[in-house]
């Protein structure tokens, strides 16, 4: 364990992301409220809040922003500013830095989604929306896996770039691109576009129909190569420190 993680790094890194967890949860709670009047049941609330809602209040947008901040704050910023040199001139290894920060990234996303699950279910109670525990937590779990995929892409890019500015722009272009393609694919003649966007894999209708296993298999299969690819790059690359 101590070979892979450094408690001190975990502690420091957590300090740079917890604010963003709160910001995301707060924004998404506002989102629940905004969407609550239009939802007939809890799953619809989630679907609206996370993906179908209007452009201003949309989980996808927040997720994109949060992923940008998480992965750049954790990895790229330290390389860009050169502060990583301080850590690397102690007996801490690149591997420990990577695993510690990866752990912070994943646990930030897990706690964010747990909070979203709890707050969302409270919202359904408040507004008397029909609620089913099984479906609700399945959708939350699916959203969590989806956020991990998005985070893996952002992590990958964050590891490859040395300048946070470029990393941010690239992540925004890719994730924003998926979002745009997802929106376009809802227009009649552009339905084929749904095969080009990650968003297709966050399908709440499939959860309701009970046919959701494939999503839980496909999403991690996408995430793993990105996490591994980012890690390998970070372990091997020249650091401009």
């Amino acid at each position, binding site marked *: 364990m101590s070979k892979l993680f450094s408690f001190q790094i975990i502690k*420091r890194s957590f300090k740079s992301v917890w604010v963003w967890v709160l910001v995301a949860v707060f924004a998404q709670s506002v989102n629940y409220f905004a969407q609550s009047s239009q939802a007939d049941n809890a799953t619809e609330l989630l679907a609206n809040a996370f993906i179908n809602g209007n452009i201003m209040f949309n989980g996808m947008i927040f997720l994109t922003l949060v992923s940008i901040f998480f992965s750049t704050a954790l990895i790229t910023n330290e390389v860009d500013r*050169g502060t990583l040199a301080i850590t690397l*001139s102690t*007996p801490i290894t690149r591997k420990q830095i990577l695993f510690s920060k990866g752990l912070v990234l994943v646990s930030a996303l897990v706690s964010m989604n747990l909070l979203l699950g709890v707050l969302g279910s409270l919202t359904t109670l408040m507004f008397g929306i029909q609620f089913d525990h099984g479906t609700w937590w399945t959708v939350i779990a699916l959203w969590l896996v989806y956020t991990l995929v998005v985070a893996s892409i952002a992590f990958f890019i964050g590891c490859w770039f040395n300048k946070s500015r470029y990393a941010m722009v690239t992540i925004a272009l890719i994730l924003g691109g998926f979002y745009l393609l997802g929106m376009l694919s809802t227009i009649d003649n552009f339905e084929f576009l749904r095969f080009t966007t990650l968003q297709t894999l966050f399908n709440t209708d499939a959860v309701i129909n009970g046919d959701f296993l494939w999503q839980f298999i496909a999403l991690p299969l996408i995430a793993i190569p990105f996490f591994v690819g980012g890690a390998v790059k970070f372990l091997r690359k020249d650091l401009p420190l």
Partner: protein
Amino acid sequence: MDNTKGVIVVENLTKDYGNNQGIFDVSFRVNKGEVFGFLGPNGAGKTTTIRHLLGFIKSENGSCKILGLDCWEKPEEIQNYIGYVAGEIALPDSMNGQKLIEHVAKLRKIKLDRAKELCAYFDINPKNKIKRMSKGMKQKIALVLALMHDPEILILDEPTSGLDPLMQEKFCELLLREKERGKTIMLSSHIFNEVEKTCDRVMIIKQGRIITEVDMKDIDKKRPEFVVTKFSLEQYFMDFYKKEKQ
């Protein structure tokens, strides 16, 4: 070059950044208890060489070893024995100096006794936020971070940049004391005065290639040749700096 086992051994180190930039076929060794000066004009490749020693970058050719350990393969083991001051200091703005010192002490699993002594020696109040510190104050914090674990080897990339003359003086005194305690020191610098006071041996690098290596004792012998003895080293090396092509 003598045959004693070098503490820092660099052999044919090459990193080509294109356009004739980078370092080419750099070889040298620093022996135990020696203060080794590393001189050269801007962009000569001093920092690039030092980055290899720290394991931040991987060489294209050649090798560098510290205490027999490969700098790219085993940086974490080497770090136990090194104190490093970066050429461009980057400290996390959001922390205060004290917190940063404590953070690094925890990473190194050491006590804060020596850090406190060093803060007193350099006359720093580490309680200030790093963001509001002057360049010299940040430099002093970096010196404390590099020295607080009392390392066997010091790798210093322009350690006195930003320090006032009084502090530069104090730093030289500290270096000499560390040398007396048997520490091995590699010092990259543009300040001849400081090099002259502390170094046993000096190497010049220019355009990524080592030009010359001199024993300071030999310079002392050459002294009478110069009219102004005070800046003898400077005069001696200026010739090398100015030469168009080696």
